[in-house]
């Protein structure tokens, strides 16, 4: 029996070092050399080096001049993630869906039939970085109005940022919301956090629901 225990302890120690240590550190080393951006979390940096976010992680957008991501069960908290775990028949779930639908109908001025279900349901991880192309097109008119540009130019930008299924058949066509919004800022001028507050344009006069900005 003593031999058994000794072997068990030695095996545990040896494989812990090999599989917990060497394996993970080896992968980390390869990642640093070969996939340095991905290994760090696919982060997007500003010119001054601060981090805007990750291209894989949804962030919260509330202002009319930006496209909005899918609803999140954790309010886009990327440090404590999750879905809503609402069952399909849960009255709270159906109420939340109804409220999101009403909000979109008002905000975008459309009927329920034009709203893809992705925009009224929360994603699995609460951080889905993508929306379907139809969900982006749905928001195009509002974004164009807020930025004082033509809808066609916004639609063009959506098309340029639409990613088809991998190899043509794996997964769904999708638009990365953060990348699309960055492209908007690049093409039509920044309206985000870095911008001085008195910059003109009708966009600036719209109420910004929930953004926390004060209006004087």
């Amino acid at each position: 029996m003593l031999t058994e225990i000794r072997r068990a302890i030695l095996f545990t120690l040896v494989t812990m070092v090999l599989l917990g240590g060497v394996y993970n550190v080896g992968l980390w080393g390869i990642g640093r050399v070969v996939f340095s951006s991905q290994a760090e979390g696919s982060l997007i940096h500003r010119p001054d080096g601060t981090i805007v976010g990750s291209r894989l992680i949804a962030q919260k957008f509330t202002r009319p001049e930006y496209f909005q991501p899918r609803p999140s069960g954790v309010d886009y908290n990327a440090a404590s993630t999750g879905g809503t775990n609402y069952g399909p028949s849960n009255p709270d779930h159906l109420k939340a869906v109804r409220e999101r639908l009403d909000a979109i109908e008002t905000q975008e001025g459309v009927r329920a039939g034009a709203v893809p279900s992705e925009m009224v349901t929360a994603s699995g991880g609460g951080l889905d970085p993508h929306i379907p192309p139809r969900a982006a097109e749905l928001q195009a008119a509002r974004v164009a109005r807020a930025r004082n540009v033509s809808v066609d130019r916004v639609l063009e930008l959506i098309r340029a940022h639409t990613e088809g299924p991998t190899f043509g058949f794996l997964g769904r066509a999708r638009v990365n919301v953060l990348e699309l919004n960055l492209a908007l800022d690049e093409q039509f001028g920044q309206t985000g956090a870095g911008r001085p507050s008195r910059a003109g344009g009708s966009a600036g006069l719209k109420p910004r629901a929930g953004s926390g900005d004060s209006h004087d």
Partner: protein
Amino acid sequence: MGTDILAIAFIILLTIATSVALGRYMFNVFTGGRTFLDPVLVPLERLVLRLTGVDPNEEQDWKQYSVSLLVSNIVMWLATFAIVSIQQWLPLNPDSIANMEPTLSFNTISSFTTNTNLQHYSGETGLSYFSQMFVISFLQFVTAATGVAACIATIRGLAGSRLAHIGNFYVDLTRATVRVFLPLAVLVSLIVMSQGTPMTFEGAAQATTLEGQAQPIARGVTAGVVSIKQLGTNGGGYFGPNSAHPYENPTPLSNLIETWSITLIPMAMVWTLGYMVGRRRLAIVIFATMLAIYLPMVVFGVAQETRGNPAITTMGVDQSTGSMEGKEVRFGAGLSALWAVTTTVTSNGSVNSMHDSMTPLGGLMPMIGMWLNNIFGGVGVGFINMLIFVIVAVFVAGMMVGRTPEFLGKKVEAKEMKLASLALLWHPLAILVGTAIACYVWATSADPGTALAWLKNPGPHGFSEMLYEFSSSAANNGSGFEGLGDNTPFWNISCGLVMLLSRYIPIIAPLALAGVLGAKPAAPETAGSLRADSVTFGFTLWAVIVILGLLMFMPVAVLGPIAEHLALR
């Protein structure tokens, strides 16, 4: 929808095709044959065995083999329990994660040593990088390898004649770890890393969003865990949402490779059996029987999920892409349903969508997968369950036609049937009694909604949440209806115990069975023998699995998912 069918067919066919080659490779690894990776991996295998102090030529009978298995698992349990209990004082903890609370530690470590990977914590808030590496990643390798070792030993017993020994546990364990899991895990890690899965020792990234809000983004040594959790039918995610989290499964391509990883080794085990007992036909019959249960479940599950939630359809929303609550846009409803069925027929338990939010009958498929627990099954262990069903089917068929039941030339007698029944009956016992106790506690508590706060969802779905949790624990699966508020002493301890018993009873009983059968002389087959490698036997096996495996769960299925389905409109 059309591309979904193509994608699903492609993934399944790719897995089947590659599993044949891997089955051959594993046969060579465990029988001393040569493989193309030998120059690199054989020295590593020898090194591990030498440092452990194991003589590679030592042979063990089934009792010694079981003792080695249990003692090694107990030591691993103690060592890793210690680590998570003191993780805040250990290095590699940039996000200052606290020590784990004792009942949660008990549950977590029992869960990971039993290859279940049920998680009552969330990785990004509950574990340091040190624990992710030296507890999670480590256990995901060695517990998967434990299952493979037990399965190989069982097959040796079935294949052998007048055997005194069934191999050496440490040799099998080391071979499975170093020569099967390690190379595959490195390959899969690199692929998912190329797609965007992080592998960094840096703490959370501190982002300032375009709208100027602070957004800390948890990351870590993710890629190393993601690959082995998929390959070893572990399923324990790095982050709470598992492979629904964009970091754990960033693209449809990573989704392809991760889905492939779930069933690759379980499928390959069937071919390994065929090589080891020298009967390709038997392997084909068993494989086809498994497919004949797996494929209808996939088709049904995908159909349910792509049809959407009728309660949302009535609101007039465009639900043409299916039920999307708890699902990710890049995968869509079809690939999510494929994963849900695949991860539960095997004992993997990773998820790429939230099972709690599936449609009622879509969500019934994962439960059926766990109730059967033998279709491809866990690496090793699930296949042992299948062999038990094979022996029962042989017995039933033998009784029906009035011939002596025999399998691979060995008579199946009372003692074997007792061991098989023990392994078989424990499973429904644990699930149904466990759920009954939980319901009793719920029903007898005053104001359980606030006092216990277990159930996020009311009505039949709440019942499903409790049923799912015990099904997942007993099947050593580890997925969950995560609306269950399960980080409480009741769930931590009850599920911890169910996981431990449900792991070791179905491992030790078959090892004993293998010992008994292996010691018997194999009689040459005659015209009077029952042929286990025939199509007829395949049908019998299918019927035995469906009737014995599912019928006893019919009442709870009606109370939970089916009741919810009928009420939902």
